[in-house]
């Protein structure tokens, strides 16, 4: 599979869906030393904090969101013993069951890959200017995950 592997493709905020196989190719193409790849895929649940959700939409701060995801990738590469990391987040309307966010971390060993992958998604939630609107039977709600 021929895919672009430049750093810009490894950090993206995009409206459309993504293929995990294709994104994986970008990471594994970086080195034949990769032996363990940890991934996190966030998907749209039909339920949230006790209420039903019919669909959702994400809004991002164009520019700053990309900048923060880039920071996350760079800090992960610096602070963990890993070889490559990819961080993607979608924006716009998203149906139940669809992909929202993807983190892929390739390392020589699995423990490092897992640690870095968990750190990336935790950090993404903390520092990335992205907001979620949930459409529920009771109305539309902006979600405050970290009040």
């Amino acid at each position, binding site marked *: 599979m021929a895919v672009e592997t430049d750093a810009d493709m490894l950090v993206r905020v995009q409206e459309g869906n993504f293929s995990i196989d294709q994104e994986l190719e970008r990471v594994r193409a970086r080195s034949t030393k990769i032996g363990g790849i940890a991934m996190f895929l*966030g*998907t*749209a*649940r039909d339920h949230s904090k006790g209420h039903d959700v019919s669909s959702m939409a*994400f*809004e*991002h*701060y164009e*520019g*700053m*969101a990309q*900048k923060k995801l880039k920071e996350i990738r760079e800090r992960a590469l610096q602070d963990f013993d890993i070889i490559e990391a990819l961080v993607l*987040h979608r924006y716009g309307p998203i149906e139940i069951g669809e992909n*929202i*966010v993807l983190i892929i971390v390739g390392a020589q060993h699995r423990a490092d890959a897992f640690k870095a992958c968990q750190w990336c*998604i935790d950090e*993404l*939630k*903390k*520092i*990335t*200017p*992205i*907001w*979620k*609107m949930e459409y529920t039977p009771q109305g539309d709600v*902006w*979600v*405050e*995950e*970290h*009040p």
Partner: protein
Amino acid sequence: MFQVRLFGMLKTLVAGSNMLEMPLADGALVKDLVDSLKVEYPELGKLLEQKKVVVSVNQEIAHWETALVESDEIALLPPFAGGA
């Protein structure tokens, strides 16, 4: 006039607008902006006061002592909720 971008639920506090304008002098601090907002938009002011909403300047979270110029990209950011 300083332009201030609004995201997420903050837009609902300002009649659905994603931008507001505040009259400030170059060199004003973020806390001066917050003080002005408290007067014009009390609900917004309260969220800023409680640090539930943060101010970003040129795409970085700003301190209340950060000085502003009119060309700065200023935004008010409610709590983030990305990542699923």
